[in-house]
């Protein structure tokens, strides 16, 4: 069962290992720039948000952002590339593996990319930052990141499956993914929103991702509303991704 998924995932990890260094440099550059620009640049203006020093306030979100972005990127582009450019999906499909093997292997590859890159950004920020976090909070934080990477990997898989033109994947990223991330309060507390739209914002899966991650890292608990949101989003996106891929392949 799922031996095929494991082989496909193994292939993706082999390829990732080969290019890990250049991948990491490019993947760390972005959150680190944001961290230095906002965390240190604005430190003199924003001393603390709800009692949390500003660099520490944004750090968990930047780490989660790296993870979910990497998961989405890998899943969408890799699925598109293997389907439309290299046509390796067709090669997988004439072997005894099932479409479930393929889509699950690909989802876990996106998830793993997210996990690896998020971890590295986490370590880099940890080295740069003068304060220390409570390591007992780490498991809850990792659970939160894992669930969010899963959700975004599935979203990426759906995009890579249904979108044929590469420019449209870029559009989805800039019109859907980036706003979802920035609206969710990485850089500011949700209390900045007018109370009329706050309940809507709190329903976004990304809010659960970023608020949940920050609460998890700083306090060791995720508000149950966010945890439920994360679990349901991951489960829902997984189902939709598998279903979509299955449908596409039966065409």
């Amino acid at each position: 069962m799922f031996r095929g998924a494991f082989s496909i995932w193994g292939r993706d990890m082999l390829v990732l290992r080969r290019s890990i260094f250049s991948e990491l440099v490019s993947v760390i550059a972005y959150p680190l720039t944001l961290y230095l620009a906002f965390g240190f640049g604005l430190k003199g203006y924003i001393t603390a948000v709800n009692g949390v020093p500003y660099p520490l306030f944004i750090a968990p979100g930047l780490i989660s952002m790296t993870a979910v972005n990497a998961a989405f990127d890998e899943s969408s582009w890799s699925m598109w590339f293997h389907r439309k450019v290299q046509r390796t999906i067709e090669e997988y499909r004439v072997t005894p593996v099932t479409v479930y093997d393929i889509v699950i292997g690909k989802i876990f590859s996106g998830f793993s990319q997210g996990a690896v890159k998020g971890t590295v950004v986490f370590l880099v920020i940890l080295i740069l930052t003068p304060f220390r976090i409570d390591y007992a909070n780490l498991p809850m934080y990792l659970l939160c990141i894992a669930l969010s990477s899963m959700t975004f990997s599935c979203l990426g898989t759906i995009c890579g499956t249904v979108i044929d033109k590469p420019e449209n994947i870029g559009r989805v990223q800039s019109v859907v993914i980036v706003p979802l991330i920035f609206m969710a309060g990485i850089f500011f507390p949700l209390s900045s929103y007018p109370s009329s739209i706050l309940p809507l914002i709190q329903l976004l899966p990304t809010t659960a991702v970023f608020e949940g991650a920050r609460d998890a890292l700083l306090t060791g608990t995720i508000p149950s509303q966010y945890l439920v949101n994360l679990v349901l989003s991951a489960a829902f996106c997984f189902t939709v991704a598998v279903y979509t891929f299955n449908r596409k392949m039966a065409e």
Partner: protein
Amino acid sequence: MNFAITLHDITKSYDGFTAVDAFSLEVQRGTVFGLLGPNGAGKTTLIKILTTLMRPTLGDAFVEGHSVLTAGKDVRRMIGVVPQENNLDRYLTARENLALHARLHGMRPAVYNPRLDELLEMTGLAGRQHDFPDTFSGGMQRRLVVARALVHEPRVLFLDEPTTGLDPQSRRSLWDHIRGLRRTMTVFLTTHYMDEADALCDRIMIMDHGHCLADGTATQLKDAFSRAHTYQVEFRNDADRYQGVLAGLPFVKGVERDGSLFQITLADEASIKPLMDHLAGSDIRRICLKEPSLEDVFISLTGEKVRE
């Protein structure tokens, strides 16, 4: 049951356009079957249906007794596929491409490694096995795709235009190879090269617009469909006069003239004798039987018009 491949009334439509139309076929086990047809005839569509990449709109097909509709996984265990366009993984080395394929077939390294050595040796790629396929020439990539299709020792091998883009040496070595497989495997191939079909296939089918037009061995097809009684006669002199004479003979079915060279199609083989009676031997420079080629059969069945 002696058939490796069976198709029952397979139809495939792409939004209203019928690419394959109620196609039925049985391919004997252990033979090389060649499918010929102009661009867009439906060859690749048939291969995609047989390799479970595509579902037929109507009908069912069986590979080694397994239905492509209900037992796709069993079908895929039996088959090796060389698609029309190379689909190698350019981020994996040649050897890793083969190894991944082996793993997808559930083979363990102890089993597949010796097999990979053997295949890389056979396809002449052993020296380049740790290089990436995008550094290979087109022919080397093609050989790698063929090697990949053979890793798990399939019972039925599908080859969609396997030798397109290969140099004559590689083509011939691939032919030798396919001939060598014949006894242990059933080979289903498509090609645009008539000499390839002639040299390789135990049975040839010519199709167009989703229908079968002709079916048989190369010899049978040539006998049945080509202008088997066509002679080329070249005159030394008096060509104009002979044109008139030939036009008046009842058993001459057609005359094509190119200067002093005539192509004369006779009603039957026996007509050669009366024809000779009407031509003065001293005026003839050369006379020969025009051997029919598979290409003549193909053109006469599918027409000369280029497909859009």
